[in-house]
């Protein structure tokens, strides 16, 4: 999978590394901003209220 991505990317190795780093940063950002807040609603790790 990752091998395939590496081979499909154009350009010299340093360029591919740069592209992959940017891609990784974008994924982490998307996770922190949208994915994790959404997931956390279904993971009751820190409920602190009492209710019936």
């Amino acid at each position, binding site marked *: *999978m990752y091998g395939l991505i590496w081979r499909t990317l154009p350009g010299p190795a340093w360029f591919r590394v740069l592209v992959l780093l940017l891609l990784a940063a974008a994924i982490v950002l998307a996770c922190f901003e949208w994915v994790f807040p959404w997931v956390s*609603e279904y993971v009751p790790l*820190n409920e602190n*209220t*009492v*209710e*019936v």
Partner: protein
Amino acid sequence: MSSVTVPPRHGVYRSRPRRGIVSGIVGVIGELLITAGVLLGLFVVWQLWWTDVQAGREHAQILASLEWPDPGPEVPPGDDENSGPAVATRREGKPPVMEEPTDTTVFAELYVPRFGKNYVSPIAQGVDKATVLDRLGIGHYPGTAMPGELGNFATAGHRTTYGKPYHEVADLKEGDPLVVRTEDTWYVYRVTDWEIVWPWQVEVISAVPGVKPGETLPKLTERYMTMTACHPMYSAAQRYIVHGVLDYWAPVSEGVPAELVDAGVKVGRD
């Protein structure tokens, strides 16, 4: 001429040995598992660290945007002798009580010397996780008493993550002051007891703590405060509950409660 066999370098280095379809699939599964592991790790980092950073910033902004007057009378400039904050005198009569605000309104601040002299957290109306507890700080159970009112001023707060306003709730000892400030009034509660309960034990936030739903409430004579937080830490299995009772109140315009002055808690923004 002796013949020298030249290794077919080109071939060896260029074409990788063909992998079978099974090993190909196993390889992809392995990579997916590694990716899942990394994502889970990132989730933990986000939950334990980033939500705190974010909520901490947000709480500071909320407190600054309240623009409440600094407590106490104006201290004349240059008067070093009296430059400390004035101490508010205790009042034991019927305290002023504000009306219950609309959901997500920040209407009070909580100071707890036991949590450190820099500790202050906003208190907002409602206990919805996404809109209040994860963002605004401590939440006030709608329908329970307001600060100073007869009954039970019941609050919920995160013990871990999202700014964790109730992080050290289990360190509270009997007699510790819990100081609530609205725009105009200080309410000084004192811790009386604590307990660990199941999430469905709503009697802890009853107007008289311990009176279960359906049972008749006795005539209200006390002004309680209740804090609810998760227990054990990083779990949602149970709830850690702290109860307190109002000791006294004081107008903000007079100064700062002695409990905060003695503990070196700084109030006001300069």
